[in-house]
C-alpha cells in the first residue's frame, strides 16, 4: 500500500515528507511505547502512535521506519516536525483514534508488523 492510499483512508494531513507519498508500505505497527516499536519494527512499515515527542522520530530513525502517523489529532511541535524533515521521515496526522485508524488500514489489507520474540 502506498503512503498516498494511507492518507486517503485516514483522511490524514501531511506534516512532513511530501516527496514520500509514492513509497510502498508493507506493514504497520501501532504503539505509544517506543521500546515495543524497537522490538518489533522491521521492513518498510508505518508507525501509528499517539506519542508526539522527539523520541518518536529518533525511534523511527533507528528502526528505518519511513512513515509515522500521529493518531487522535496529536499534532507534534514544529521542532519535532523539523527533526523529521532533517531525517527524511514522512509525518502524517489523522483525527481518528488509534483503534479506528489501525482498523481502517487492517481492513484495507495492510498487514501487521509481526516478529515473534525468541
Amino acid at each position: 500500500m502506498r503512503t498516498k492510499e494511507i492518507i486517503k483512508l485516514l483522511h490524514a494531513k501531511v506534516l512532513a515528507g511530501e516527496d514520500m507519498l509514492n513509497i510502498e508500505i508493507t506493514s504497520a505497527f501501532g504503539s505509544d511505547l517506543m521500546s515495543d516499536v524497537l522490538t518489533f519494527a522491521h521492513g518498510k512499515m508505518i508507525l501509528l502512535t499517539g506519542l508526539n515527542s522527539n523520541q518518536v522520530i529518533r525511534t523511527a530513525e533507528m528502526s528505518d521506519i519511513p512513515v509515522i502517523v500521529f493518531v487522535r489529532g496529536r499534532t507534534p511541535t514544529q521542532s519535532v516536525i523539523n527533526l523529521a524533515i532533517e531525517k527524511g521521515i514522512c509525518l502524517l496526522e489523522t483525527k481518528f483514534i488509534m483503534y479506528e485508524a489501525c482498523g481502517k488500514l487492517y481492513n484495507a489489507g495492510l498487514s501487521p508488523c509481526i516478529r515473534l520474540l525468541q
Partner: protein
Amino acid sequence: MKKEILLEKNFTIIPGNFELAGRSSSDIKYVLKKIGIDQELIRRVCIACYEAEMNIVIYTYGGSIKLKVFSDEIIVIAQDSGPGIADIEVVLKDGYSTASNYVLSQGFGAGRGLSNIKRYADTFFINSIIGSGTKMELCFKISNI
C-alpha cells in the same frame, strides 16, 4: 597481532535530557553509513545504541558510549556513573521496569531496553556495581568480510 581499528568515536551522554536523547545514536548511524556498513547491521547496532543511550539518560548520572569499528566486528561500550543494578537477571527479563510516570509518558520504561540490546547484539556482556555504575560491551559481527 593487534587488530587494526577502522573507526573509533566517543559520545558523552547527558542525564535527564530528553531533547538531546538519541543524538549520539543518530551520529553513530551517520558514521556507520558513511563507511559503507550494511543497512540491516546499522539498524541492529543503532537500536541497541539507542536503548543504551536512553538507559543512561533515564536512570543514571551520565555516561558515555564508545564505538569501535574493526574489519570484522563493531564494538559498542556503554558506561555510566549510575546507581548500578542490583540483580541483572531480573532487569534482563522483558517487562521489568522501575521507570517514573514521566519516563513512561516519553514512551520509554516498558522494561524492554536491556532485553532489546541483548536481542540485537551478537554478544552481550554487562557488569554492574551498586553505587558505582554499569558497563555494557556489545559486539556485532560484520559477516561480509
